[in-house]
């Protein structure tokens, strides 16, 4: 159905000659046109690209805690979090105990108060100090189980194995289990004989031999 209307010719059917410009002017026009066309797409694309890089480019603001007056806060300024269990709950015979860490959690625009933020293994040998391990496998981030029969920590994803002191037992994980700082306290005050267990809960980058805080 080409050119059914006599008054309006359709393009492409006939091709009268096109005026030829001087090459220099044409080149200049082409250059400017090219630049402008690039610009109108480049500006929004660049802005958008920077927006997309927000997780890298933006500094996060500190969030508040909601401790009532007179109450010992659950978390101190150094980042130690009080666990719900006390020294007595950790088995004397060296069997590890899995404990959930409760803390405030900021997720983008939301503040979740006192929610589980992670899980750790606690272990005590005799009257010795309490050890705390982050239960996340340093290999690729699955969670490490305690296997009673083997008396070792074992990751079901890729068979990483760790001794009860956290030392790696095969070459699958790049480093030992991540040890967390522990502080024994009474009413939040440092006390070697205290019963409260405070742990500096941190997560570390996976798949590297170095222990790097995330």
């Amino acid at each position, binding site marked *: 159905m080409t050119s059914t*209307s006599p008054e309006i010719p359709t*393009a492409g059917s006939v091709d009268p000659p096109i005026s030829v410009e001087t090459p220099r002017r044409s080149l200049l026009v082409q250059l400017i*046109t090219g630049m402008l066309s690039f610009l*109108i797409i480049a500006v*929004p694309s660049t*802005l958008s690209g920077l927006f*997309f890089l927000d997780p890298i480019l*933006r500094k996060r603001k500190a969030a508040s805690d909601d401790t009532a007056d007179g109450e010992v806060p659950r978390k101190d300024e150094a980042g130690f979090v009080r666990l719900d269990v006390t020294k007595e709950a950790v088995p004397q015979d060296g069997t590890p105990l899995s404990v959930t860490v409760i803390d405030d959690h900021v997720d983008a625009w939301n503040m979740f108060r006192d929610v589980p933020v992670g899980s750790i293994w606690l272990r005590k040998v005799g009257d010795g100090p309490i050890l705390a391990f982050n239960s996340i496998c340093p290999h690729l981030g699955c969670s490490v189980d305690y296997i009673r029969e083997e008396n070792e920590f074992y990751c079901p994803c890729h068979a990483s194995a760790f001794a009860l002191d956290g030392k790696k037992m095969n070459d699958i994980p790049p480093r030992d289990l991540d040890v967390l700082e522990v502080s024994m306290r009474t009413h939040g005050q440092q006390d070697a004989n205290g019963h409260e267990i405070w742990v500096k809960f941190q997560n570390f980058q996976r798949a590297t031999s170095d222990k790097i805080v995330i």
Partner: protein
Amino acid sequence: MIALINWLETRTGVKALMHEAFNERVPGGARWRYVWGSTLVFTFVLQMITGFMLWSAYSPSTRTAWESVYHIQHEMFLGNIIRGLHHYAAQGMVVLMAIHLIQVIIDGAYKAPREVNFWLGIVLMMIVLGLSLTGYLLPWDQKGYYATQVTTNIMCATPVVGREVQVLAQGGSDYGHLTLTRFFAMHAGILPTLLVGFLVLHIYVFRRHGLTVHDPKRAPDTTFWPDQVLKDSVACLAVLAVVLLLAMFRAPELSAPADPAVKFDAARPEWYFLFLFRFLKFHAVESLGVTFGAIIVPGIIMGIIAAMPITAKVLGNFGHTLNRAFIWALALGVVVLTLMAFYEDANNAEHQAALTEAHRDGQRAIELSIGPDKIPVEGAVTLLREDPFTHGPRLFAQHCSSCHRFNGHDGRGSLVTEAGKTDEAPSVIAAPTAADLGGFGNRQWMTAIVMDYSNHFAWMKNSTWFRDAQAKNAAGGTVDYINPDSSEMADWTSGNLDALQSAENADNVKALVEFLAAETGHAGTTYDAALVEKGRDLAIKGSWAGALNGTSCASCHDTIGQDFPTQPDDSTASSYPTLAKYASLAWLKDFIRHPDAARHYGAKNQMVVYSPQKLSDKNLDLLVRWLTHDYTPSTVPDYANQLDVLNAALAPSSSVAVEAAPKK
């Protein structure tokens, strides 16, 4: 480079494609009037780019939509720019589309053989309008929520299938999570895909027929590249500059989080739908029903536009003239209706007050969300629901403003009016019949009580009970009523005014006021501790200078300086109002619940008793915390003080009794 292009060419035909795309003939030379189609394509590309970015941070649910948009705009890097670009480019697209449509009709570009392309264009226009409609709801703010409610309710007015269409759009019988997921799927998935499809067809058919050129001899023919592309890209750059500047200097508004329980009196559609909004408000249109005004009339208009190619074919040149006349008339109508809507809104005090409140709520929601507590899991809507600064004014307007005022207004910024004296007379500004609580409990308030008691409570003299009591007593009756002009306190103030104003007591008055204001415990003010202690001595021991020495507040108000009791009772009440923590949160709560208690003003107090049935504990708490400033401090501009306007309106020439306005 050339080898690479040749390699590609033999395998893909890219060179031929580029040649095809860029070497389109432009008969009569490149012209500015051909740029509109290109600017529309550009705006759409801009919407795709910014839209994908917003998508990467948007979360469609009733508990996260507002929150994620807030996060984009106020927390994320360049988020305000990206949202601003998307917001303004959407409006630009509607404007450009209108220009494009008008031009196509004026130039007769819809006529044979381009009818199909004209119809494709109309389909594209519908899709773009659908995109703006669905996009307006996504931030889930009051503005979008209530405006879209109107649209979905209009859908409901569609004959036969209306209710089903509405339920389908909403994803249920009411608004909820699914409304957002469905609107989002439409906005970001279905409609853009359709738009791309129809746009490809539109451009393909356009290329097939070429430009509609009136004057091919005007200049030598040229090609699309570079001459026309240059003009197109300059036009696109102008569009980009406009939306970018708007985004930078006029951030798009995010009003308060949608709350079905909170009225939104400022609801309006996006400005380019205002003409339809205004059209629906004509009495003649209203009386014919929503279906007629919002569905049948727009349907007929779209039908006439779609039939334009046929009109022109059947009626020839006369048809084309008819079509041109129609589109001009329509454009004129739209412009006039839009201007009318703007003009009427600008001159509508109620709408302006509603807008002020909408801005105040929106800014407050953002201010609370920015705070270190962030947003609770229940959503930002709860931040406002539990905020005295937001709900105190509303409760004041609802419960208190029939007698009291707050800085001259009803708490929400509006003057209180009452019906005129006759049915035809316009409504007039009503005189307050109780104290103005704008500065309740602050230093000025306390100063007025000590130095200017009668005048401070003069508003009461406008009340009916006051006049009735005066009339009865004048006729020899013995009505016991609160009289600001004649009471022990009024007499003390007026009787001791010289002593209070004397130089030797200037510091003492200051100290007493400081003490009284500090006793209220209102947040946001710091008090001079030494002055407060001095004031306490004055209040309790009466350590004044000169003749006043020995007259203490405590000699009548025996509980002054004490804590307000948690379980107040009247077993030890003197016949004087208690000033134990006068104007504090606890005092005010008790006063509102029991204004007639002996510990306050007793049975002669005409104030309405607000029982929990009338004002719930939660609302009492919000109201009182607002009046005592017990809320997260705000930098949001508050309602303007209207005392001057009120005083001017009640000036002697007006119909309202004036002797009862406090003197300046």
